[in-house]
């Protein structure tokens, strides 16, 4: 199987994918003061992994992040988001924003919004790991697996 693309694409991907990842994290963490949020940031962070898979091939990308690590971060993100919801019980109820009354941050600064900032971070982890893992799983099936029009028993 061909291992990725021409050297121009490989060098450009090597330079650019780090910037894309940082941009995705920025969009997710400043979701409460400018457009974006955890979902958009997570998809952008997954797009940097997609770029590595496209430019270098799947085997090289698996040295950076393996599918089992993606599963771990995916479940961790979902579990932590649920934990934020449950910790709110100490302040009154499910999903109560318990940080805002404690620290009165000003509107428009980075450390405002209470649990919104923390929730954006966990959603970023969850969406990015989920989509990167799904793309790594789909990347194993790049070529059509069978000769032309010849169905084979798979079970």
């Amino acid at each position, binding site marked *: 199987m061909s291992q990725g693309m021409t050297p121009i694409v490989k060098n450009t991907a090597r330079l650019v994918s780090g910037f894309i990842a940082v941009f995705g994290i920025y969009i997710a963490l400043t979701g409460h003061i400018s457009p974006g949020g955890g979902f958009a940031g997570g998809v952008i962070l997954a797009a940097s992994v997609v770029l590595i898979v496209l430019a270098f091939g799947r085997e090289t990308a698996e040295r950076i992040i393996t599918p089992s690590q993606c599963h771990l971060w995916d479940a961790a993100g979902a579990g932590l988001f649920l934990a934020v919801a449950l910790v709110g019980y100490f302040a009154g109820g499910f999903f109560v924003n318990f940080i805002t009354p404690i620290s009165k941050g*000003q*509107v428009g600064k980075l450390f405002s*919004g209470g649990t919104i900032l923390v929730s954006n971070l966990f959603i970023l982890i969850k969406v990015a790991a989920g989509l990167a893992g799904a793309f790594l799983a789909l990347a194993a099936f790049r070529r059509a697996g069978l000769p032309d029009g010849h169905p084979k028993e798979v079970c």
Partner: protein
Amino acid sequence: MGVEYIVLMLLGFMLIAALIAVEADDLLSSVIAIGAAGFALSVVFLLLGAPDLAITQVVVETIALVLLIRLVVTRHDTTSEMPRDALRTGLVLLAGGLLLAGAFFAISGIGGKGAIPPFGEPVLGHKATDAVPPGVSADYLANSAEETGAANAVMAVLLDYRAYDTLGEATIIFVSILGTYAVLRRFGRRKKSQETEP
């Protein structure tokens, strides 16, 4: 007045792109046409005052295009659609026309009041009258800065006022990714067993 014309033109472009995507014979052409429709949609989102949605739609469209092109470009398919006959095409067009007419009457209403508020005047903050249910969005817009501390009202709605719904949506994303793993997993297991057998 200007934004309605631009939105109308972009929607016309999206309609033509959707028609090409659905009717083209070559699978790669139809996938590229759906990409064009998605990018036009993101510009429409930007014009309608939704920059979060424009960012999300652009990135999601890019990844969906990558997935679909990788699916289509190496798998050669010799499907030939059945030649369409006049009766079938006529029935489909008739059904489509009837549905559009029904939608027109539902939207603009017979004699004034339609089902959807007219374009440009959303149901924001009415108190409850007998005809129109009360809206909560005016309260969200006015109070989100002091109650939640977030400047972005959409994020405040998504993660503070309606955080329970966001938990449900995160669960749906989780389940669909799990479904992708489950559909693709059997091949990997079989490959390992083929390697261990001599």
